């Protein structure tokens, strides 16, 4: 299938907007209002640029921009296709919301070094969009590493002992795997194929021996440790020491989604479905993902700290996406890609809620939150919606993606996986619903919940309401995400 391509600088602009705003943020560090206005402005512009490319993409055209030809056959090159667009749309829209939330959260808690915080946030967003728009493995790797390093100061924002050890763990896993696995795998692929440009059928097809391709496949799969596939997952719970907006955007949306996005990109664009299928590589991928789903969900059950619970939930949910891609069936892949968007809106709502609770009450553990629904009804309602979306029940967007995943398992004749999906949904319900129930219907143990309704600041509450609403809306109007995912699957499989 021949894609029409047009050359435009827009993708680069989309990446650069948040990069160029950094100096302005640094300069306006003394005046928080100006600084945050700039953040908003950049987020808005970024979103608009991304949005302006949507119609073009929906027409089946690709946008390409080459920054520099660095190595023969490999350039630092941006290309917007439907899958990248889907991801960029999610992350850029959520940046706006998160910026608003950050302002409320950071100001209320009087956090230190807010300028640094906003700067690296913007940097991380640039990297995320860059990953989304990467046209080849090198560019992907570039932005992937940039994201790793840009998020380090965010993760360790508190600069205390705990942040320090978490930061170490974060770097060890993320950078260690990317340099230890992805870099050599990328270079071996380059010497095999002579190119690194993603193509819809994969560029490794027809090169290399079977064991080598298999080895490469797993090096990539585990190398993108941001995807938190077990056993390379334990950085994610550790990274929860970060301020909640960071956890929300980066560890529920940007960083981990970049991980799975990279895995999906590599599986489809480097290996190609045919190659994976012919070498039966998809089966181990599916089983690894399934194991991660089950294990993550089970561990989440035992967590008391709300953010850690969400972290393990994320680990499980991420593997849904890997699983969807690994099924190699059109429906399954659609479901996997769609889940990036659906899970993003659901999970960010949940994180916002956790943060709002922390801002309003200072509580972190579920056991301390019994009856909190009386004090923060809006927040907890949003939490309920978010958890429905994660469990995959109507009326939330999560239902659609899970539906496609289930269809995909049937299509691929992987009935055990269907069982895994259903069980994990039950487990999801099992760790979310009791909390929601206790929050609303149990008598508060803590006297502070008896008092009248007292929500977190408006800057915190409004964003979470918005994301909760979007989660609902996505069920009824899943466009353009569904369309984008289907287009991508079509270009890969031809169906």
């Amino acid at each position, binding site marked *: 299938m021949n894609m029409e391509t047009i050359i435009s600088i827009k993708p680069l602009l989309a990446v650069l907007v948040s990069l160029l705003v950094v100096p302005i943020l640094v300069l306006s560090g003394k005046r928080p209002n100006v600084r945050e206005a700039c953040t908003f402005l950049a987020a808005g512009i970024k979103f608009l640029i991304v949005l302006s490319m949507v119609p073009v993409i929906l027409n089946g055209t690709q946008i390409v921009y080459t*920054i*520099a*030809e*660095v*190595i*023969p056959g490999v*350039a*630092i090159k941006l290309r917007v296709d439907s899958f990248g667009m889907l991801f960029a749309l999610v992350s850029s829209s959520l940046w706006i919301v998160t910026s608003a939330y950050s302002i409320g959260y950071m100001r209320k808690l009087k956090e230190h070094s807010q300028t640094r915080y906003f700067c690296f946030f913007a940097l991380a967003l640039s990297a995320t969009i860059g990953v989304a728009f990467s046209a080849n493995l*090198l560019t992907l*790797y*570039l932005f992937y*590493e*940039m994201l790793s*390093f840009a998020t*380090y*100061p965010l993760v*360790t924002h508190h*600069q205390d002992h705990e942040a*320090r050890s978490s*930061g*170490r763990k974060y*770097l060890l896993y993320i*950078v*260690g795997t990317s*340099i*230890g696995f992805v*870099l*050599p795998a990328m*270079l*071996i692929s*380059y*010497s095999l194929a002579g190119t690194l440009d993603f193509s819809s059928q994969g560029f490794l097809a027809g090169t290399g021996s079977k064991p080598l391709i298999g080895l490469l496949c797993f090096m990539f799969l585990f190398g993108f440790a941001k995807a938190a596939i077990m056993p390379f997952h334990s950085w994610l719970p550790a990274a929860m020491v970060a301020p909640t907006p960071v956890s929300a955007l980066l560890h529920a949306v940007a960083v981990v989604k970049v991980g799975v996005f990279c895995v999906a990109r590599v599986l489809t664009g480097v290996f190609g479905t045919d190659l994976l299928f012919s070498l039966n590589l998809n089966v181990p991928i599916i089983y690894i993902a399934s194991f991660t789903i089950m294990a993550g969900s089970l561990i989440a059950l035992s967590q008391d700290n709300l953010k850690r619970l969400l972290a393990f939930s994320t680990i499980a949910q991420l593997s849904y996406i890997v699983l969807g891609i690994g099924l190699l069936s059109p429906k399954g892949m659609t479901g996997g890609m769609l889940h990036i968007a659906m899970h993003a809106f659901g999970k960010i709502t949940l994180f916002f809620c956790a943060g709002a609770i922390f801002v309003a009450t200072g509580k972190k553990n579920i056991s301390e939150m019994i009856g909190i629904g009386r004090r923060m009804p809006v927040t907890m309602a949003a939490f309920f919606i978010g958890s429905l979306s994660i469990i995959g029940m109507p009326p939330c967007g999560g239902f659609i993606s899970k539906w496609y995943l289930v269809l995909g398992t049937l299509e691929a004749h992987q009935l055990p996986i269907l069982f895994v999906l259903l069980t994990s949904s039950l487990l999801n319900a099992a760790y979310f619903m009791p909390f929601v129930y206790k929050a609303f219907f149990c008598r508060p143990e803590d006297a502070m919940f008896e008092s009248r309704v007292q929500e977190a600041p408006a800057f915190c509450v409004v964003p979470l309401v918005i994301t909760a609403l979007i989660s609902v809306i996505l069920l009824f109007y899943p466009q353009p995400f569904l369309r984008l995912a289907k287009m991508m699957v079509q270009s890969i499989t031809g169906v």
Partner: protein
Amino acid sequence: MSEQYPALLVVVPLLSALVVSIAGWINKRLCFPIAVAALGVAAWSAVGLLLRVLDEGVIVYKLGGWSPPMGIAYYIDYLNGLVLPVVSIVALLNLIANKKGIEQQFPDKIGPFYTLYLLMVTGLLGIVVTGDAFNLYVLLEIAALTGYGLLAMGEERAPLATLNYLYMGTIGACFYLLGVGYLYIVTGSLNMVDIARLLPPLYQSKAVMAAFIICMVGVWLKMAFFPLHAWLPNAYTYANSAASSLIAPLVTKVMIYVMIRLMLTVFTPEFAFTTLAVSNAIVWLAVIAIVMGAVLALAERNLKKMLTYIVVAEVGYMVGGAWLGNRDGMTGAILHIVNDALMTLCVFMVVGNIVYKVKGYAFEDLQGLFRKMPFTMGALVIGAMSIIGVPPTCGFFSKWYLIVGAISAGHYGFMAALIFSSLVSVVLFFRVFEICFYEPFADHHGHDNHPGGMDEAPVSMVVPLLIVAVILIVVGLYTGDIVNHVIQFAIPETMV
């Protein structure tokens, strides 16, 4: 004037060194402007030469008007055309950045310092540009002697460390001289191109093989290639920062250049890789160099010394790359000369700034530096990224070529060593960053006047540093052009 660039390149720094020396006795304030102007001219000529080479190909400059092999000639081809601008620009930026540091450390010896500095640059530029094997030895000695002088002025341990460097450096230079003598005895010529023309029928001669090995050992001694590296860490660590940030980026890299020049021009790649059949062993030696450098760096609790071990490891990168015996490896090695010079400069200049402000470079002295010196530390971050090999900084791309070369040579040990050293670099630098990031800055006098305040080095030190940091990224982005238009032609076509 442009046809005289080759002469200007070397002669202007030499003349200015002499003028600065005289000016040092008369008016010390004249020294710095003269030195900067001279290095500016040198950098200008170097860039001009590179452009001319790109236009016209190899340039031959006959000194004294005698045509080679009677007289001495300069050959500027794609290989040294690339290295010359790097050497001159590194020297220029470092000079500007260290003005304050020099005035702080040697208030009454400014003249001699600049004289030695300029002579050293003269020597290094001459080594790169010359086409005569013996002339190279003389220039090598100039660079070495001035280097000893510059390095010995530092901490208490500096003279002893430098004396050890002097012993090793002299043996190295003498070995090189002996190798040249061996070549002379069998060919009768001293001109590199001429030797290359006369050598092929003699490749089976024991004397030629010995000449090659002796030259290589000599050059390795000078570049501190494992296991001949023992002199380097101490010599560079205890020196003053202006000297170490000139010598650490340039000397080892220029020696790598000499090695590659010997391998490619004087001898042919066929001789080096096929006739001798030692390349595999040398690559394994490079692997050990990289691993040992990384591990020894890990054991240090002192920023500057840690960086010197990284220099040792980087030498392993380049030697290994050059000896992989294929085009990609050689490209990586040549590219890494450029990149490593720049990134070593970057990190050593950072150390210079830290020493200027904090008066120390042990890990304990670094606490809270991110807040205190944000620009300096920002540059350190970029330099570290380059050493680790994170795109788009230039260090990534040379590592790319080196690894691709290792893969196509089937030398997975070398690839593993490169990856290992990247991983260790991550640990090394993030250990430093952690210290700079977390602990509050402890004031030794017990009272902290500006808690959390910024206390950056002077602008004249920070601006060159930031320029270097930007260059690191720009060079990275232009890697494609450098390889396609320059390095590709620097490697003989016979090498695949």
